[in-house]
């Protein structure tokens, strides 16, 4: 039965169904509703877990690190500055191969202080060894959380997962959501039972010093796991999810109206909903367009993407992040992929557009005009909807 729920509440109730033993978080907008709901579930006896109200996000990430190292499933969520404060710990969690699951409610990064949505925050930790998934809808955000625990804790993976949801749009928006039954989640997600943990009956040393003779292999091992096991396991878990829950989950990417598409939009997160609507309207007018929605940004689905755009003439990357001084991170990813691996006979033109930073609305009309412009131009990092009147000179 579908319930009309706020995104954050739906996510919190889904997380509760995954039976975490320890939850730790620090307040930051727009993530707060998730942990408020989790606290409330614990306070009312609906969830048996320890909630640790820590004094910073650095400690929130460290607290779940400790809990998972002790063999207990743990969860945290954050946004923006909170994620940046966690960054040091997140690299550490990945390096220690601890399957922490978190939600990043994506928000702009200060300065100037801005609490609204874009995806610049998560890009700061894209190189950490964390599996990064992006949801388009509230339902998908919930579904990805359940899968995230299974992927992270898979014995061939043992890496953290961050489920990314667009701040406000998905965290504070309301949507009819299907929350699964506890017994179905239990069937899908077995209890966490790691090969090694902090246990007085079987003492191990975790987090040792490692010199030049060992460090490099720790990074090689994560890279191998990401590009081989994780790529396979994300798809496999999505299929298992679809079979058991009866609701489609797409795995690494979702392809939308790609058959015969000559122009393909590539994007991540909730903006894909807008782009799909535009694609529907363009299709009605006879335009050959489609969408590739990246769900797994890390690991990046190289092989799948190359196949999906094998006969595409034009790729338009639309993203809510910018690597200042370069291009949008997703644009860079796609262009590097196609330059290095794509069949030379079909090298599509790639345009990069930056939009929606700091919560600026992105309209269907803007997507349409990007499409029209792409027929004659291929910019690499063009900001859309820049208000010239806001660019006054400094006196």
């Amino acid at each position, binding site marked *: 039965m579908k319930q009309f729920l706020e995104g954050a509440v739906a996510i919190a109730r889904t997380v509760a169904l995954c039976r975490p033993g320890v939850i730790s978080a620090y307040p930051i907008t727009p993530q707060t509703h998730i942990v408020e709901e989790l606290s409330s579930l614990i306070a009312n006896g609906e969830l048996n877990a320890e909630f640790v109200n820590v004094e910073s996000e650095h400690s929130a990430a460290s*607290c779940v690190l400790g809990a998972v190292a002790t063999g207990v499933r743990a969860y945290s969520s954050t946004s923006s500055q909170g994620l940046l404060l966690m960054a040091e710990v997140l690299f550490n969690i990945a390096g220690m191969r601890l399957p922490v699951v978190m939600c990043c409610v994506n928000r702009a990064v200060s300065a100037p202080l801005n609490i609204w949505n874009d995806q610049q925050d998560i890009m700061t930790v894209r190189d950490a060894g964390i599996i990064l998934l992006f949801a388009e809808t509230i339902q998908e955000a919930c579904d990805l959380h359940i899968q995230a625990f299974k992927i992270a804790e898979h014995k061939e993976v043992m890496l953290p997962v961050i489920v990314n949801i667009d701040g406000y749009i998905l965290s504070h928006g309301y949507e009819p959501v299907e929350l699964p039954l506890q017994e179905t989640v239990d069937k899908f997600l077995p209890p966490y039972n790691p090969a090694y943990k902090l246990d007085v009956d079987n*003492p191990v040393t975790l987090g040792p010093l490692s010199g030049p003779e060992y460090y490099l292999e720790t990074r090689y091992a994560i890279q191998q796991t990401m590009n081989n096991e994780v790529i396979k396991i994300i798809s496999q878990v999505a299929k298992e999810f679809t079979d058991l829950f009866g609701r489609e989950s797409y795995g690494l990417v979702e392809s939308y109206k790609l058959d015969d598409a000559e122009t393909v939009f590539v994007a991540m997160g909730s903006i894909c909903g807008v782009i799909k609507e535009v694609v529907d309207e363009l299709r009605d007018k006879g335009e050959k367009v489609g969408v590739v929605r990246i769900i797994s940004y890390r690991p990046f689905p190289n092989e799948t993407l190359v196949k999906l755009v094998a006969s595409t003439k034009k790729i338009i990357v639309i993203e809510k992040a910018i690597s200042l001084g370069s291009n949008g991170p997703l644009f860079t990813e796609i262009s590097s992929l196609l330059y290095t691996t794509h069949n030379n006979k079909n090298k599509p033109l790639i345009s990069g557009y930056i939009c929606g930073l700091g919560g600026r609305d992105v309209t269907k009309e803007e997507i349409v005009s990007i499409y029209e412009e792409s027929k004659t131009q291929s910019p690499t990092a063009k900001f859309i909807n820049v208000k010239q009147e806001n660019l006054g000179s400094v006196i």
Partner: protein
Amino acid sequence: MVDEKILFTAGHTACAGCGQSLAARLVIDASGRNTIVVTNTGCLEVFSTGYPYSSWKVPFIHSLFENAAAVASGIESALKYLRKKDSVNVIAQAGDGGFADIGFQAFSGLWERGHDVLTICYDNEAYMNTGVQRSGLTPLGSETTTSPSGTRSYGNITHKKNIVDIALAHNCVYVATASIHLPIDLQNKVKKANKLKGAKFLHIFAPCPLGWRYDPSLSIEVAKMAVETGFWPIVEYENGVLINVRKIKELKPIEEYLKLQGRFQHLFSSETGKQVIEQLKQIVENNIKKYNLIET
């Protein structure tokens, strides 16, 4: 041969005369097998866990420089969730920089939340692992690589932060100081702290021959002199009440402590230095009054 009773084994790479390695061994041997140890980045972690070796015969985790207290909070919460906390001790430990500077917020958080964890500061009064830079626990006048003495400097210009009083202000159930030259006292305090439920704090004086510039054979002597000059009071609080003070039979002048160490030598050769020594004497006076240190 490895002695089964020893939980912190030989073969680590600490310097000769290292006060911290001795203290860490005394702590874990007193705490026993049913202990999980969390250690901040610093000398102790570096010299005891160089992969693929480890000196720890108990579960040990090191994460970062400043998060042992938060990691320990997570471990303690996980043990509570598993209903195993009553049978397992958790120790969160760090050097003075990792404890009182960069890691202090996390320790304050742990204390305030009252996690059932024994927190330990091994105090060698500077950042030794990175090459003897000053910390918030470096005493006034001490020379370090970032508080050198010179024509315009008498060494460290700040007083040592009083973390015993700060721990008491957090209502920790147990707060005590200890020193490596009093091993039985130190181990008794660890055992007592572990028996009490809640946040506990043990501040251990751990001389460092390299950073303090004295002969490695003198570590115990240096520690002893710090206590006998009234510079490092040995005290014990339970639930905020001072229950024990180690009395000094014959108070020694502070100079006897300072002269043992290279880091204070410059104080004896300038007028400013002599004024600093007067200020250090004032600290001793304050300690004597505050704790009634002298045996009568």
